[in-house]
Structures are given as C-alpha cells and as structure tokens.
C-alpha cells in the first residue's frame, strides 16, 4: 500500500496559535477519504499544506513522494478545490475553462464539457453572474477536467442544495470509481460524506484524533445513537461507552434533534458524529439543569 499523501509530524503555526499540530497521517492510494472535524480543526490548513499553498512550520508533507511546493510533477497530479471556490468573476464560463486548458497540459476538454452539460451551465455567462451553487459546479468541472490523480476537495458541498449535493456526490463517485483516483474531502458534517467515504481522518483542535478505514473504525468504536433512559441531571456526566477492543473510548452524541436530551443543545454538525479520543481529556460539558 503506497501512501499518496503522507504527513509526518506536520504542524502549521499562524503567529502564536497552532492551526495544525503534530499531524501524522498517511493516505493510501485509491481511497476516498473523509477529513472531518469542527470549524477551526485544521482541515483547510492540512489541505493547503498538501497543495504547497502553505509551508509547514514543523514536520513535513509529501505528495506522490515529494514535498508539494512549486513542483510541476506534483502540481499536475493534484486537483485542489478551495473552500471559497475562487474563480475570476470577470471571466465567462467558457473563458474559465480556457484558463484551465491553457494552464494544464493534461486538460481534457471533453470532461469539462461533460460536466458543463450535466450541470447545465451556460458557457457565455459571466462567473460573477452565476449563483453560488453554479460557481461550485464550475469549480468542480475545472478541477476534474485537469484529470488529477489526487483530488483535494475543501468543503465542496457547503453551498449546494441537498438535491445537487446528492447528485454531485454521486457523479464524483462515478468519476472516482472509473479513474481510480484518490480523493480527500473535508467537511464538518460527517453525514454528507458517510455514504461515499471509505477512510476517515478526524481532526479536532489542530490534531489528528483518528485515522483509519471506516469499517475498522466502526467495528472498533461503539456508536451509540438514541436517548438515555434516565435524563442527565446536574451531577451526571455524559456517558462513556464500553470499549472492548481496547481502542480509545468514544463519547457519543445522540444523532437526531429529537433525541437530544433535554436541556442539552448540540450543534447540528456534531450531533451526527461521535467525539472520540479527545473526550478522554475533555468530555463534552454537561448541561446545567434548572
């Protein structure tokens, strides 16, 4: 198993705060990796370090066996979709694709046209006049037509409606399956990735909490969903599930809004995912009951 993206002791500091710290993770080839964590966990920082947009403050990151910064052989094989979907607003859709064609020797116009058709994007419309969702679609087309071997997507679904989101995930997976490329998708909502990913990297407070095969993770961690029989009181802490395999315990949070215990509010992002190892140090705060 060769690692397409390998980080060793990787850290990034902005002035005095560490956005990412001591991150060691190896992403195997051909996997669809979900990079999950709350806002500010360091997902974007990790992805930007992997593209060479940022330089590490500590450790190193290797992509296809080489540090990514400014290397044509790495640049040509990595497709990156930044979180804010940057595009030139004065360009038309067609000009944006021409931009991609001129800057990438491996450009595949048929792929670009195919995506444009699927998304029904008008070629002569200015990028500035497109909706947020359409811009995401154009940015996806622009990234995929480069035919990358490693696809780094930073919260690609954020401004899409559920229907398009589902569609995009499906189309993306078709491409991935057909071409056998490696994908890293970041999100703060695991639910939107759960159906497509087969490898999970969980980031929180700038550190990797967990990185493994999804199936192995699910087998080794007990995910409790549901409502406690006895509602938590001021004195009870959130419960700890049993960990028979000896893996770190997983603090689990009831999934749907309806099952949220009384007096306790969870952000929707976290309600669908359990908070693993860090809970051993920092269990979720307990609600104060009136």
């Amino acid at each position: 198993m060769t690692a397409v993206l390998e980080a060793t002791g990787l850290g990034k500091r902005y002035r005095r705060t560490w956005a990412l710290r001591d991150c060691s993770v190896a992403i195997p080839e051909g996997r669809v990796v979900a990079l999950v964590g709350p806002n500010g966990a360091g997902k974007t920082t990790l992805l930007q370090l992997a593209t060479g947009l940022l330089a590490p403050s500590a450790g190193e990151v290797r992509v296809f066996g080489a540090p990514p910064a400014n290397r044509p052989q790495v640049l040509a094989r990595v497709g990156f979709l930044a979180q804010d979907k940057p595009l030139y607003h004065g360009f038309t859709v067609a000009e944006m694709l021409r931009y991609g064609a001129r800057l990438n020797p491996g450009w595949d116009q048929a792929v670009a046209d195919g995506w444009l058709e699927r998304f029904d994007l008008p070629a002569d419309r200015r990028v500035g006049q497109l909706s947020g969702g359409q811009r995401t679609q154009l940015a996806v087309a622009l990234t995929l037509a480069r035919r990358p071997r490693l696809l780094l997507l930073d919260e690609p679904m954020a401004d899409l409606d559920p229907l398009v989101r589902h569609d995009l995930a499906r189309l993306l997976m078709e491409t991935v399956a057909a071409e056998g490329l490696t994908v890293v998708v970041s999100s703060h909502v695991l639910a939107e990735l759960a159906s497509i990913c087969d490898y999970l990297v969980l980031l929180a407070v700038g550190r990797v909490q967990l990185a493994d095969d999804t199936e192995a993770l699910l087998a080794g961690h007990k995910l409790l969903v549901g409502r406690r029989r006895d509602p938590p009181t001021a004195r009870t802490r959130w419960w700890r599930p049993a960990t028979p395999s000896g893996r770190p315990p997983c603090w689990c949070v009831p999934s749907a809004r309806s099952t949220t215990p009384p007096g306790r509010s969870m952000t929707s992002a976290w309600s669908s995912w359990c908070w693993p190892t860090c809970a051993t140090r920092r269990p979720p705060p307990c609600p104060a009951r009136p």
Partner: protein
Amino acid sequence: MIWVAWRQQRPATVAAAILLAVAGSVLLVSGWQVTSLARDSGLAACVASGADCQVLVEAFANRYGPILEPVSLLGALLPVALGVLFGGPLLAREFEQGTHRLAWTQSVTRGRWLAGRLAMAAGVLVVVAAVAAGLLTWWWGRFDQLHISRRAALERGSLVPVATAVLAFAIATAAGALLRRVVPALAAGLLAVLVVAAALSLAAQSWLPPQPLTVTYPAGQPSPRAGLDDQVLSSGYRDRAGRDLSAQAVDRLCPGTAGQALDRCLAANGIQRIDRYQPASRAWQLALARSALYLVVAALFLVLAWWRTLRPD
C-alpha cells in the same frame, strides 16, 4: 500562459485606454488650438522670420500660460498613474479574491505564472506609456515651435516617461504583494512612487553622469549661452575672489535694489553670475542615464514582489 496573462490584463488595459483617450483628446484639441491661434495672431510667421516677437509672445502667453502648469503636472502624473493602475491590482486582486489559490494549484509553477503575468503587464504598459509620452511630447512641441517652452528637447521623446511608468508599475506590484489588498496597494503604491521618483530625480540631477557644466559671466549681462536651449539647473553669484555668494550676501551688498539697478550695482562690485547647466546636445545622454537609473530601481522592487510571492506562507 500568454492568453491567460492577456485575459487578466485586459480590464486594466481597457481602463488605461479610456484614460489615455480622455487625456489625449484634451491634449490634441488644445494643441491644435495653440497652432491655429499662433498662425492667426501672426506669431508663427514672426518666429519663423526670426524677428523680435516679444509683444506677440506675451499676448500668446497670457492666453495659454495658465494651462501650461496643469498640463505639465498631467505629463508628470500620467505615466505614474498608468504604472500604478497596472501594478497595484496585479497581485493584490488575486490575494483579495483568493484566486491565487486557483492560479497556484494549476500545473504551472508559481514562478512561471508570475513571470508570465509580469511580462505581459509590463509589455502592455510600455506600449501605453509610450503613446502617452508621445502625445505629451507632441503637445509640448506646439509651444517649442514658438520658442515659448523647451520641454520636448529635454524630455527626449518617450524614454523617461516610459521608465517612470515601469518604476511606478514595479513599486505598485510590490505594494500589492506585501499588502494583499487592492485599495491599500493602490494608495500606498502611489505614495511610494511619488516619494521614490522625487528622490531619484534629485539624485539623478546631482550625481548621475554626465555632470552639469558651468558658465560664468558678468552679472547684469545676458548669458553667453542664451538661446542655446540649455537646461539651467541652478544659478548663483560669485565675487571677485571666486567665492560663492549667498542670496543674503547679495542683498547686503546691494540693499533695496532690483531690476536694472541691481544689475548695475552687481556689475560695479565685479560680481559674476555662475550657471550650472546641461547643454541641449546632452539630452539623449541624460534621458538614457535617468531611464537606466529608474529601471534598475524598478528591478529591485520587482525582485521584492517576486520574493514575497514565491515564498509560501
């Protein structure tokens, strides 16, 4: 890369073309007016015949004197404005809109991308600035023909204005790379250009070769080099012993005099005038030396912008 660089340069080029069209039409219309007025008033014929045209020149200067100053300012600011317009947003807009993340994750390296963008912007700028400088030279030429100004000979075509535009471009580009916001980059770029250009202009005058020549002649008499289109840089007084006199010293020597009375007083004391000047024949040499100085400093600023952009955050 060429198409990409051109497509990204297009908005600034259109803006520059509009700026040039407005400034150019003002210059062309006023230039033609000057020519026709000089012809109708008989000034052109008088100058051509070589006679003394003092009265006609004064009537003409009364009409057009007031606009010489603003146009002179426009002439100095137009290349600076063009350079800042091209350089300020070049990198700052990419950073501001986050599109540098798009550009730098394509298959071309950052260095090639930057080289392409800079080369295209500088190339278009040189053409636009040359047109602007040509227009201004033509405009000043209308007055030179009438022996009212000596501009064109000294500005020597487009060389110095084009070098000034490139200097402004380099400084504004560096400001954009450092500040990463369009409006602050434009403001800081403009300010820095004015300061640097003024400093370089002074430096060029005082130490850049060829050094000025001097001529001494008795005070109160016309300079032996009158009418030779010299660029007089400074003039002072010198006494019999060859010591330089300050303005206050001259005042003490001949208190309360002016005009011809002052001239007589100075002559009676044996005071000499001393002029530092550059002869008109050196205009090309001066323009070349000054342009070279501007371009060297511009290159330094481009190196700064290059370094800041290629260094990963």
